[in-house]
């Protein structure tokens, strides 16, 4: 500032100060307001709300929405990587302090401290090594491969496949997670929180299974019909939710949670009667296996389970990206997600978009079911839906609601799932350890302020700071 406060008793003296020579004079454009606008652009206009986007959200959608937004839109990369590191450390500690052998060694800590520490270290690391070998690469398979007489026998007996088996399993596990994760991420972009992955999964699974064993079609066509059917089945459930929200204003979180129960019991009902979907001659809640024509084709031979479902998942991720970023439909979705009232003013039909986005999301969750039924399970039972719909939320969260992020998050969780059995078999670490890791990752992602304070990153306290400001302003 070129002038300071003049003393109050000499108010008229600095007349010249009233028209200062600021930077505006220097940069003055042809029009007088150009200079002013420059001032305005750099002026502390947003001093009161330096983080205006979250601030707006607070006004628009309340506290839960704000927290969710800050999770999805925080500083992505660093926090994600550090969250993974933190999860591995926490998991290792839990492992080291829960393993009975190690605990015993801790008991003798004062007589043999080195032993206890070494054992704790090797236990923690050993579990991760097995996890890695089960999900990505196992060196033993390579040595086995080199002991083979010729390439021909190696190929024929599956030694080559064994090398790639961990990766194949990771992809197989990741496939439904990616698709279901997209089913959460896409509506999130339009401002909807889809908790109903389970119900949409079940919807897709029922249709895909029924088409799989109930009708006869030529090979390739049968696969396609089943896949499209699963999309339609999931989409129907998603459409129903969107329609309820659009027509009555029912909150999608409530409706989707309710749909999860409804569809789970509906499936149990279908599987309880032979004249419905229960397989003939069994008392178990399971359907007949689907026709082999309806199986998704394997990609790399019979030794590896990786199938076309993985390609479907990748194609869907690419499709969702294209839809969101390159089409008018996605433009509407994103507008409505960020600021529904501005979207409405701009002539967008908010309700119709809710229905559409839930329909597509339901279809994606239905496709996830298709990759499970037609890719790996081939039958449907009352547990087939597992926790895909719920895991999908964590995948979408970890992927920050973006298609590419969802693919990476899905692969990560897929790897954890794929490696878990070997880890348990080789080291005795329970498979539940994987859930601990997942939980810690998500906890860390969901708590960026925590991550930032643990690792002393700048800009911490985002959520709380904004909440406090929202109250003050």
């Amino acid at each position, binding site marked *: 500032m070129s002038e300071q406060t003049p003393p109050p008793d000499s108010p008229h003296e600095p007349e010249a100060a*009233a028209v200062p020579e600021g930077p505006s004079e220097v940069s003055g454009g042809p029009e007088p307001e150009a200079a002013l606008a420059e001032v305005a652009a750099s002026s502390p206009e947003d001093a009161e709300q330096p983080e205006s986007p979250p601030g707006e959200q607070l006004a628009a959608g309340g506290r839960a929405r704000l927290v969710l937004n800050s999770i999805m839109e925080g500083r992505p990369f660093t926090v994600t990587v550090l969250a993974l590191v933190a999860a591995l450390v926490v998991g290792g500690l839990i492992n080291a302090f829960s393993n009975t052998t190690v605990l015993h060694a801790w008991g003798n800590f004062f007589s043999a401290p080195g032993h206890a520490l070494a054992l704790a270290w090797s236990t923690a690391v050993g579990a991760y090594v097995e996890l890695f070998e089960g999900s990505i690469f196992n060196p033993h398979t390579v040595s086995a491969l080199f002991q083979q007489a010729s390439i021909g026998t190696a190929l024929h007996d599956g030694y080559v496949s064994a090398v790639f088996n961990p990766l194949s399993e990771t992809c197989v596990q990741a496939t439904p997670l990616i698709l279901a994760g997209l089913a959460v991420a896409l509506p999130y972009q339009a401002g909807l929180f889809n908790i109903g992955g389970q119900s949409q999964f079940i919807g897709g699974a029922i249709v895909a299974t029924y088409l799989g064993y109930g009708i006869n079609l030529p090979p390739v066509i049968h696969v396609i019909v089943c896949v499209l059917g699963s999309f339609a089945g999931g989409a129907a459930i998603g459409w129903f939710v969107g329609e309820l929200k659009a027509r009555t204003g029912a909150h999608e979180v409530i409706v989707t949670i309710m749909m999860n129960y409804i569809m789970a019991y509906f499936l149990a009902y279908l599987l309880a009667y032979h004249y419905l979907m229960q397989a003939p001659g069994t008392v178990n809640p399971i359907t007949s296996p689907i026709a082999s024509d309806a199986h998704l084709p394997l990609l790399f031979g019979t030794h590896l389970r990786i199938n076309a479902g993985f390609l479907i998942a990748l194609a869907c991720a690419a499709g969702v990206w294209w839809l969101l970023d390159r089409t008018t439909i996605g433009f509407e979705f994103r507008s409505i997600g960020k600021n529904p009232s501005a979207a409405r003013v701009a002539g967008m039909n908010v309700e119709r978009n809710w229905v559409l986005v839930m329909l597509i999301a339901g279809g994606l969750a239905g496709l996830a079911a298709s990759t499970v039924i037609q890719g790996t399970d081939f039958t449907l039972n009352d547990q087939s839906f597992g926790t895909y719909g719920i895991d999908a939320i964590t995948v979408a969260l970890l992927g920050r609601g973006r298609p590419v992020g969802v693919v990476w998050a899905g692969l990560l969780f897929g790897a954890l799932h794929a490696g878990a059995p070997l880890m348990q078999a080789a080291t005795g670490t329970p498979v539940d350890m994987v859930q601990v890791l997942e939980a810690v990752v998500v906890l860390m992602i969901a708590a960026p302020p925590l991550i930032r304070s643990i690792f002393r990153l700048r800009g911490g306290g985002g959520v709380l700071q904004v909440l406090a400001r929202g109250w003050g302003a």
Partner: protein
Amino acid sequence: MWQRCRIVLHRCHIGAPNRGTSRGLGVDVELELRGITKRFGPLVANDRINLAVAPGQVHALLGENGAGKTTLMNVLYGLLQPDEGEILLDGKAAAFHSPKDAIAAGIGMVHQHFMLVPVFSVAENVTLGIEETNHRTGLLDRRKTRRDVRDLSRRYGLEIDPDAMVENLPVGIQQRVEIVKALVREATVLILDEPTAVLTPAETEDLFRIIRQLKDGGTSVVFISHKLKEVQAIADTITVLRRGAVVGERPPSATEDELAALMVGRNVQLRVSKEAAKPGEAVLDVTDLTVADETGRVWVDGMSFQVRAGEILGVAGVQGNGQTELCEALMGLRPTAAGQVTLDGRDLTHATPAQRLRAGLAYVPEDRQEDGLIGSFSVANNMVLDQYNRPPFASGINLNLGAIASRAAELVTEFDVRTTSAAAPVGTLSGGNQQKVILARELGQEHKVLVASQPTRGLDVGSIEFVHRRIVEQRDRGVAVLIVSAELDEIYALADRIAVMYEGKITGFRPPTVPAEELGRLMAGGSEASALAPDPGAGTTAATPASGAGT
């Protein structure tokens, strides 16, 4: 609690506090801010601000939006902690960690948005948080509270009924309740944050009368505003803030031009130069339009008017008299209960917003952040927010990102939008530049009618000038323009014809030469003609076109 209220009572009975006495916390507190600095990240909202408020003075803080006035007062009120600097009360350093500390030190604040419980009575609101109980029964002592409110109300001429429900009170009275709230808490320094933004000219006059009485009673008032005339009318001292720093202190006798120049940093033209309108055919025809909300409350009550090509119809009125609802109904954002809206003879009464936009309505919404822009979207995307699905920006469902980008580049230049790039989130722009983005979008497309609601609200003087010139330019091109504004100055500056709106009805059409007093009367429903004898030289009621040119 009990003890505290005894003190309140005590003060209420001793009559108006006398200047010069100094009991306990002190009635005449001299407040001083020294070197207050507050940063938000890289942004310096307050830069070494010095401010001294003498006892019994009205000290105005004048500055544009974003100059740091509110931040400074939030620091003073304990809502924000300063990074540097100190607050002195009677020469002693005071640290306010929360509003509670500030209140205890005798500082009261009336926020821009009132902090009242609508379903409580005045007395209940006033005692909220410092409720007084009868020490025999332990129950709330409602009678005493009511008496206190009545006493204070009488002493300062506030005319408040302690038993009235707050939700039933007009805005001006609610503001007085806020003032009483502060007085009951023994405020000796009262901060009023943009107190006139929601008031009618008559209510503003009443507020000024109350402020003068408070002042005579020894209370210091910090009056925050960006309106030059008001500040000149009420203040004893005017401190001007610009970009977070104090740029000068002036007596109220300083000229308007001088204050404006200090505030903005250069000389500004306060009037829009325009030629006489050459109105053509009626383009927008509104007949008996009635709009009600979900609860059945009628906001627009059988309004009829026409806007002709090449003229600006200004709708004046105090906020909350149905102007928002009128605009929303015109844009199809609110259902029309009855009546008809036609554009060039085409019936649009039940058209969707998209159909209306296509029919040639352009709309500058009242709340630009909420309704006009998507803060996290880029400037470019915001510039096609209501045209994204038309060629050349889209072919089929494919967005044509190249066309959007080049369009944005064009508009950024044409409308002089100051942004680092067209890809920057629009939320990072200043308010004036955000408004330019909206104008660029709405004016840059083919349209026959422009509906602009509060087009310059919250903008600095320079941006107001820009927006006004663009709007007049539209008129001269033959667009029918409807301006809705609560600022009389704006109506006078732009309108070729003025319609005054009160409780959903038009109380009269007037030419722009009409005196402000008459408009004020129409804005208050047209019945309070005698109650509104203007206080010469004070307040917005005196804002005639002639005086707007500066003295």
